[in-house]
């Protein structure tokens, strides 16, 4: 579908700008009389600066310096092309009047008709009894009918007075005053509205208005009316400063459904450089009540959020020597089915310094990190944690093989408060860690010139047991057991638990490249961990992992044909001879089409299928869909279907959506529609929330 409709006049070559003050006339026959009147006939062409008249008959009055065009003519001035039944032009005042006119804005591919057009010296056009549209000449899909329209090219704005918008003849909007852009400059104005109906909000219409406040900051104000809840105001500002940028958002609603309780959402993102070496990243988000997104979010990407991060992160980096990070972080828990005891601790602050010597002696470098964190959480054990972590790292890489070994010493001490009586306030832990990794790299080139690589790796980790039963758990947890975890130096993520370990991990990765592009045609990785002893350090109420071989990890990525890829990521348990985790996906991707069929299984957690589809259909239609079905709960959790019809001057997008929206498992079903009359407003972000990200790849 072309970007804009082809208007008739695009065949005539553009007028080359000229500031020649003389009036140039060409005609087959001319007649100049003594009192300065000239009559011209026969393919007459008048040029005055960058304005041009072409007609069959024209007269010029030297005394009045006026051109009169009795016959139908075409007038052009670079911004505007006017075809009129009769016209006259005052050369001194540089104003023109055109009767029975139709016009085209070449730059905007817009056109229209007007009983009378008056043109002033700056090229601003005033149209009486006018119609305006961006549709192709023979199509009247939509047009703006107005008592008068003023086209101001300097401002790039069209202003219509008592305007009526007709869509296929049906009036869909009446506005006493209506402004629309006539060039591509960022301009204050309406964005396209979104209409909808959903079980959580009832009738739901959003009409975003864009404010171009300055070249480096702008805002979008979106009044949103929901029949069941009332009027919500959303304000969203963006700013770009010399060395920082950010976004601020605020939404507020007096919710009729909750007897006019004020519900608000505040959001801030700021990233910047305080100095060349000191970066800052600030995030803040806050909702007035946990069910905010469940009721008002309107999409599963919002309603599925469980925690909102509030953090200020400062990073100082002295090039090639050390990095200091300071973090002040808190989370707002907005999943109403979570207990306060599960709330994440607040880190007020976390200070961390990482350093490593620049060059190595005998391939060995000395490095270390020191971290202080103050963990805060109401009516819980709180504490300050100091962690010292010096290490010696030896790394030697000869392409054919590489060796990496590391010896660490970990010293961690806690100053605790709020512990039960009898438990000590001060806990510390000290233990060494040793790991050694050894890898080989093999390759060969197949007859077809494709490079194949084979890379086995072995990893040994030894960490002695240190009782950590009375160490609190502030930021430790059990990560997914996947390929990256095979080579991790701690069974847990976070610092509060360092698992004892005496284990071997082995993995092999095979890859085959496409001879020309070097893109990986197929790759497979297999790995496994073998524990010589059962780890004794455990998280509270965590089952003990067993000795011996752990689950197999397998990842296969296979590009069947040019556009098809198969991806398999599994974890197979030898004892239960069953998969504990499986993720399988088949993807078809081309320039404009995307199809994915996926199956995901995690033991005791989820078993779901996922279907994504985005494809153009025939004649301007395109289809978009996503369906997430939970096999375990035998229930469709999220279904989204969207159809978009687009022509060169208008588009309509509708979407149906049904997804589990709140912790009680209730569904929100919504239908949304957006009409886009191209050129009449700007495309705001309105469309994106119709088709949530992640679907349109």
């Amino acid at each position, binding site marked *: 579908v072309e970007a804009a409709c082809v208007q008739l006049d695009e065949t005539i070559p553009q007028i080359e700008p000229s500031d020649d003050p003389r009036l140039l006339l060409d005609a087959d026959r001319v007649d100049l009389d003594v009192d300065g009147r000239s009559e011209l006939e026969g393919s007459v062409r008048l040029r005055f600066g960058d304005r041009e008249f072409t007609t069959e008959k024209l007269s010029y009055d030297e005394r009045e310096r006026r051109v009169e065009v009795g016959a139908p003519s075409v007038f052009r001035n670079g911004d505007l092309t006017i075809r009129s039944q009769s016209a006259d032009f005052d050369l001194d005042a540089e104003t023109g009047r055109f009767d029975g006119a139709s016009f085209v804005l070449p730059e905007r591919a817009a056109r229209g008709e007007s009983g009378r057009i008056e043109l002033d010296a700056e090229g601003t056009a005033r149209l009486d009894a006018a119609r305006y549209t961006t549709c192709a000449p023979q199509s009247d899909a939509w047009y703006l009918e107005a008592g008068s329209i003023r086209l101001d090219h300097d401002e790039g704005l069209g202003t219509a007075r008592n305007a009526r918008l007709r869509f296929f003849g049906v009036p869909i909007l009446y506005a006493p005053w209506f402004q629309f852009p006539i060039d591509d400059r960022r301009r204050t104005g309406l964005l396209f509205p979104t209409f909808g109906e959903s079980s959580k909000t009832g009738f739901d219409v959003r009409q975003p208005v864009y404010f171009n406040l300055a070249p480096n900051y702008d805002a979008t104000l979106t009044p949103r009316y929901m029949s069941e809840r009332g009027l919500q105001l959303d304000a969203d500002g963006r700013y770009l400063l010399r060395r920082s940028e950010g976004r601020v958002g605020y939404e507020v609603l007096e919710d009729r459904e909750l007897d006019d309780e004020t519900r608000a959402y505040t959001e801030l993102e700021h990233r910047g450089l305080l100095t060349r070496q000191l970066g800052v990243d600030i995030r803040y988000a806050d909702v007035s009540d946990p069910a905010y997104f469940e009721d008002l979010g309107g999409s599963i990407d919002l309603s599925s959020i469980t925690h909102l991060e509030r953090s200020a992160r400062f990073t100082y980096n002295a090039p090639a020597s050390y990095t200091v990070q300071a973090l002040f972080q808190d989370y707002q828990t907005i999943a109403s089915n979570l207990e306060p005891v599960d709330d994440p601790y607040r880190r007020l602050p976390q200070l961390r310094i990482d350093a490593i010597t620049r060059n190595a002696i005998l391939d060995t470098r000395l490095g270390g990190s020191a971290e202080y964190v103050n963990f805060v959480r109401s009516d819980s054990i709180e504490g300050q944690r100091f962690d010292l972590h010096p290490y010696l790292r030896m790394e030697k890489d000869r392409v054919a093989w590489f060796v990496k070994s590391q010896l660490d010493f970990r010293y961690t001490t806690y100053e605790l408060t709020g512990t039960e009586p009898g438990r000590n306030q001060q806990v510390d832990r000290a233990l060494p860690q040793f790991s050694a990794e050894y890898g080989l790299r093999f390759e060969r080139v197949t007859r077809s010139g494709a*490079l194949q690589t084979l890379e086995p790796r072995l990893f040994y980790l030894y960490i002695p047991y240190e009782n950590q039963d009375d160490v609190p758990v502030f930021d430790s947890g059990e990560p997914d057991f996947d390929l990256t975890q095979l080579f991790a130096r701690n069974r847990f993520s976070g610092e509060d638990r360092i698992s004892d370990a005496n284990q071997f991990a082995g993995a092999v990765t095979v890859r085959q490249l496409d001879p020309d592009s070097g893109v990986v045609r197929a790759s497979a990785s297999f790995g496994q961990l073998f524990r010589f002893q059962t780890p004794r350090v455990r998280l509270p109420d965590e089952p003990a992992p067993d000795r011996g071989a752990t689950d197999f990890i397998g990842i296969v990525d296979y590009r069947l044909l040019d556009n098809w890829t198969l991806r398999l990521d599994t974890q197979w348990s030898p004892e239960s001879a069953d998969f504990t985790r499986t993720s399988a996906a088949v993807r078809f991707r081309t320039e404009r089409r995307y199809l994915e069929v996926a199956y995901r299984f995690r033991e005791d957690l989820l078993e779901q299928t996922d279907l994504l589809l985005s494809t153009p259909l025939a004649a301007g239609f395109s289809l978009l869909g996503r369906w997430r079905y939970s096999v375990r709960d035998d229930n469709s959790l999220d279904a989204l279907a969207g159809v978009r019809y687009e022509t060169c001057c208008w588009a309509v997008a509708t979407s149906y959506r049904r997804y589990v929206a709140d912790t009680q498992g209730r569904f929100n079903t919504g239908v949304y529609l957006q009409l886009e009359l191209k050129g009449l407003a700007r495309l705001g972000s309105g469309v994106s929330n119709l088709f949530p990200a992640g679907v349109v790849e």
Partner: protein
Amino acid sequence: CGFHLAGTRPLPEPLQRVYINVIAPYQVVQPPLETALRAILQRRGADVRGETAPGTAVIRLSELEETREVLSVGIDGKALEFRLVTSVQYQVFRDGRMLAGPDSLRLTRDYSFQPEQVLAKEAEEARLRAFIQTEMAELMLLRLESQLGKLAAVSTPAPASAP
């Protein structure tokens, strides 16, 4: 079976002397992608410079974006699985002439989410992001190698001394 120890294939000529230029506004720390790319190039014998100069190829990395999408949702409507998506644009040029790209790479990794372990999952996410960028550096170099120079005919395996 025809496999032999790697290391016999020289780097294509443009990658012998190279400067890695990362365009990442507001980033003060070197992204793992750049660190990994620099390490791979250096071990392959490349001279990785600190700034650009005539005759030095420039690997420009831009639009390095890391996003997180909700992948699976539980019956309570809350996220059960996240997908980390990392994408980057890259191109190689020397003395104003484009040698490879502009091209892009997009890698993803999924991980489960437990609402009770937000801080632990945050640490896991950081570790996965670093892993993705390291893998991205390897894939990028494999592409650049084949685009920038036809694979040299593989000579007989040089005797490699493995400790």
